[in-house]
Every structure is written in C-alpha cells, then in structure tokens.
C-alpha cells in the first residue's frame, strides 16, 4: 500500500522522525481551517502518488489566508500525470539550506536491506544515480544486525553531509530504519531530507510503501486503507477480498494464481485483444469467491467478454465450477463467458458445467483457444 505524503509523515511522526507541523484537507474550507491553526508562511501541497508535483504547480507557497484559498481552489481537482488531486497537505514552510536524500528498502538479490544516502536530494534519485552515481552512498544492512547510531554517524560522514547536519541526521536515520523494519515498510524514503537555515534537520517529504502482508499486526493502518484505491472497480474488488487491478481493455480476466493471471493477460494480447483487468482468485477459491469475482468483472462496463482461466492446484476445479453456476444464478452476467478449466478435479468440474453450456457459456480445451475465443467475442457487436 502506497501512502500519500501526509500519511507517510503521520507514520514518520509515530517513530519520532521530525516533520513540519501541518494538516490535511479535502476541501477549500478544510484547508482554511487547517491554515488558521498554523503559523505562516505555509506551503500547500497536492497529495498524489506520483512524482513531479512541484513542476506541475501542485506545490504553492502562501503568505496569507487569501493565498491559501487561491492555491487550495486551484490545486484541488488538478490533474497531475493522470492523477486527480483529491487531498491537500498544508504545512509550515521551511527555509531550506540543504537538501539530502535517504531511503531503506530490500536488496532482493542479496536478501538483506539496503540504505541509500545522498547529499544531493530534492531531485529524482534515479537522476542522481545516472548523472552522479558517486553521490549516492549505499549501506548494506543485515536484518539480524540492524543499524546502530554509530554506523549511521559514519554513514552520514561518508556521504559528506554538512557538519552541522550530521548528528541530527544520524539520529533521524536510525529512527527511519526502525520505522522501515518495525513499521513493516517495503520502502521508506525521505526526499528531500532538509537542513533548515536555522540548523534543523527534518523530513520535508515522505514516500512510504507498506507491506500489506503485515496488515494483521498493524491496526493503525486501517485508517489509510480507505484511501488506498481510487479506481471504483478496485475498491469493489477489495471489499470482496479479491486481488484485482483495473486495466483499459475489453476482455475481463478471472484466473487463479498470480503467474497464470499475468500469463492470461499476455495471451489475450497475443490473440489481438486487451485485458480489462488482472484478477487472481488465489488458492482455495470457493463458490463465494468465484461469485464475487464474476460480479466485479461483470460490473465493469468496458468488459465485452469474460475469460475464466483456471488450473487447479489448491483450487479445486469442481469448486470453481460450482462457483460459476452459482454466480450465473445470482448475477445477471451481461457478457459471454469463455472457460478453460484444468488441474485438480477438472473432470468433475467440467461434468458439473456440461449441462449449463450455451452461446453465453463456452468451454475451450486450451488456454490459447480460450484466449482467441474471448478476444473474438469481445470484438463482436454487443447484443441488445
């Protein structure tokens, strides 16, 4: 789950990482209320999960309440690289002397953590990596060793951060590491980490990705899950406990297993079509889950055919078949369904479905044949 900047800062604050005082707003009125409680000058920042807000005009300085109103009015509803701004974060403006960069994430090839620190912050780290790779000092951390203040102090010195920033930066970095590990982050990044003109080090931005597998031990994440999905289809799928990603095509996809679901998208494209979604019903799919999947895919108005691609492992094909039959009973499915069922109990599953097959419910023996059929049906003129 990717957090917005304001959520990331709230999370940082839980771990004692210094951030500027501020508040969130979803309307101009809320923005005014927040601004009244803060000391000017303020900065009004668009909350979107994409870089380049500043260049797009999504970050504005305000010296007066009137300016807050103007900026809030302009920024709310703004489109930044395809993301509509629904929220603002308003905080005390900082007098920046220096901008640094720090982050922690998993070093997948080496299966340890990797920290990255640079005295060249405030720009995309990918750009620094390309133009001046020596300015990024990497630190490999074994999860069993952790990060001591001593190591952090040496690290900020190796990265050549300004003398006056080093002590505060080292302490902050240890707290960020704790947030990364104990806070179950996939990524904890501060860009920029700033040194103010009056000598204070703090996080001016926050980029945090939470590991949803750890949700069970973080009740405090609950408040953020509501803002996690903005696509209506995805919100509906999430409510039903489905692993769904909305796409732009016309062939609805239901598959079991992430790999097979991805592969299903690929073969639909190879057959000349486009997928409307990624949907992995996972292991142990039962009738309820299958019904839910059918409902979600069917609710997408762009869907012209539905391709159900199941290879039973944990998922038993007879259970899937019961789910399909149940779904047809419960939901008015408006698009033709193409089935490809193989694996555990496939014979039993196919036998259950046999009496239900017709022009709207078609079974194909292979994945490629089913993909071609689903693509053909999606391209055909819609009846009624």
């Amino acid at each position: 789950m990717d957090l917005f900047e304001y959520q990331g800062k709230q999370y940082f604050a839980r771990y004692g990482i210094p951030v500027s005082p501020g508040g969130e707003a979803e309307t101009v009125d809320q923005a005014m209320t927040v601004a009244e409680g803060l000391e000017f000058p303020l900065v009004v920042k668009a909350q979107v999960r994409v870089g380049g807000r500043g260049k797009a005009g999504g970050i504005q300085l305000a010296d007066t309440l009137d300016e807050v109103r103007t900026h809030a009015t302009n920024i709310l509803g703004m489109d930044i690289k395809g993301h509509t701004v629904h929220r603002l974060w308003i905080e005390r403006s900082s007098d920046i002397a220096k901008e640094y960069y720090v982050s922690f994430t998993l070093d997948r090839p080496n299966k340890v953590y990797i920290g990255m620190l640079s005295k060249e912050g405030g720009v995309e780290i990918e750009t620094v990596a390309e133009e001046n790779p020596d300015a990024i000092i990497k630190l490999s951390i074994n999860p069993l060793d952790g990060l001591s203040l001593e190591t952090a102090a040496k690290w900020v010195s190796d990265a050549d951060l300004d003398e006056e920033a080093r002590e505060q930066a080292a302490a902050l970095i240890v707290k960020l590491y704790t947030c990364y590990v104990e806070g179950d982050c996939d990524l904890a990044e501060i860009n920029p980490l700033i040194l103010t003109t009056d000598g204070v080090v703090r996080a001016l931005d926050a980029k945090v990705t939470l590991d949803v597998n750890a949700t069970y031990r973080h009740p405090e994440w609950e408040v953020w899950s509501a803002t996690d999905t903005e696509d209506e289809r995805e919100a509906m799928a999430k409510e039903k406990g489905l692993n769904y990603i909305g796409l732009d095509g016309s062939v609805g996809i239901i598959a079991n297993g992430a790999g097979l679901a991805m592969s299903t998208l690929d073969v639909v494209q190879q057959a000349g079509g486009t997928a409307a979604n990624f949907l992995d019903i996972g292991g142990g799919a039962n009738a309820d889950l299958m019904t839910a999947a059918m409902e979600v895919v069917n609710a997408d108005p762009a869907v012209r055919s539905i391709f159900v691609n199941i290879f039973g492992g944990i998922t038993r094909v007879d259970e899937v078949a019961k789910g399909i039959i149940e779904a047809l009973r419960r939901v008015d499915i408006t698009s033709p369904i193409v089935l490809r069922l193989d694996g555990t109990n496939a014979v039993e599953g196919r036998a259950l479905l046999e009496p239900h097959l017709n022009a709207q419910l078609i079974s194909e023996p292979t994945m490629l044949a089913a993909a071609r059929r689903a693509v053909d049906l999606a391209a055909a003129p819609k009846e009624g």
Partner: protein
Amino acid sequence: MSIFVDENTKVIVQGLTGGQGRFHGVRNRDYGTKVVGGTSPKKAGTDVEGIPVFANVAEAVDATGATASFVVVPPAGATAAILEAAEAGISFIVCITEGIPAHDEARCYNILKRDFPGTRLLGPNCPGIISPGKCNIGITSGDIALPGGPVGIVSRSGTLTYQALHELSQQGVGQTTCVGIGGDPVPGTNFIDCLEAFEADPDTKAVMMIGEIGGSEEERAAEYIANHMTKPVVSYVAGVTAPPGRKMGHAGAIISGSQGTAQAKMDALSAAGVSVALNPTEAGEKMVAIVKSL
C-alpha cells in the same frame, strides 16, 4: 535421478491437522511420498488418516528419521515453524504459506544462512516440489506430472508450474523434478540453485524455466546459464503486459521504474542462448522439439 528429494525422502507435515495441511499432506502420502508424520502441539498422539501426529518437529525427527518438512502454517507462525524445523535438523524445508511479511522472510532467510547453512528452504509462497513417481511435497496435482524425465522445471509461479507440467505431460515428455521457487521477494531457493542442481543431475537433459516480472533473478539466472549451463534451457516470462508500479498478485511481482520488466528478462535470457517462448504453450512446444532432437 531427481534434485533435492527422491523416493527415500521422509517428510513430516507441520500443520498436518489443519484443513490445508490435512488435504495436501494426505494427498502427498497417497501419491507415494514417504509422509512419516505431522506436528501439532495440541494434537500430539493422534493421527491423520494413519499419519502419526507429534508435539513438535524434534520429536517427529527422533521418532521417524525425517529429513524433509512441509510447512503448512498460517503467515504469523510460518517463519517460526521454518526455524523450528531447521533447529530439529531438517535439511529440506518446503513452505507453501502465502502472505508472510517481507521483513519476517528476510530475518528468517538470514538466520538460516548464518546458523543452518546445511538447510535448504524452498518457498515461502510456492507450490512445492515434485519428482514424478517418487516424491511430491506441496500442492501440485500429482496426476499432471509424468515420471521418467528428461526435463527439469523451475518456476516462480504456482499455476504456471502446473501449466508447464501439463504442456509437457500431454506430449508424453516426462520430468525429472519440478521445483516451484515461489513469488515472494525473499525466496529461500532461487533459479540459480535449481539450475545448478539440474546441470549436475545426469538424468536431466533439458531445463524449462518459468519467470515473471519483478526483481532481477531471471537476469542473474541468464548470466549463470551463459557461463555454466551445458544443457538446453527453454524459458517463458509472464507479465509482458503488466503495468509498472502495480503488484501483480505476488508480493515480488512488481515493475519498479524500468527494473523488472518481462521484456528485459526475455532479452537477457535470449542473449544467454536460452530459447524464449511467448506463452506457456509455446514453451511446451519448444521443449518437446528439443527433447525429440536429443
């Protein structure tokens, strides 16, 4: 021959008395796997369809001489179960659990590496391993695999592993061993471990490798293949159409920036001399052609 397991491998099932543990444990036993016991702290002394249940792994190992373990335990307890098995002297651990937090996996992996270098972990979040006709630990449906070789299969995805087995078996091409390494960010066993073992196995004549988007394991495998493999490799990488920045089901399947795309992986594999297919069916066809020409 086979890799990692064979017809003599004795297996215990951690979580045998749970729904999934019972279903797959009994299924593995019925396939012919030597499932010699299970563990459940509260149900020690009972049995599951004739498979004795022990209080913990150490007692199960003492009583049965098991060397392998099948972990079917919910995410919150899974890494503790893996470490319990390692401490009891188990040398091959298969964990199918999906949804383990990445930090738990990272800690568990590094503890195994530091304290139990002789223990191999397969998974988590993987379908397991099957050596057709000999041993099946995990959730793979035994009837889609065909004994006798000569193909070894290694895959990051569960259902695509079944698909690969199916494509080959239907054409009468058997498998020596099929290993599902799982789709999580910190897999205990990686592509290179399996490629190395297949290269060393005299009965394996060719290898099918199924990858997916995310990380750089396929690229690293390509480098290994170019430098160390003499046997032909056919590969398929899922997720050509996957959008960047979205986790495609597996925690590890995510394109970050330009890193981890299917195209980059396919290019790296092609450059290493691997025969790269565009879908699982084509991968099966390419492999059948290779086996016929051997």
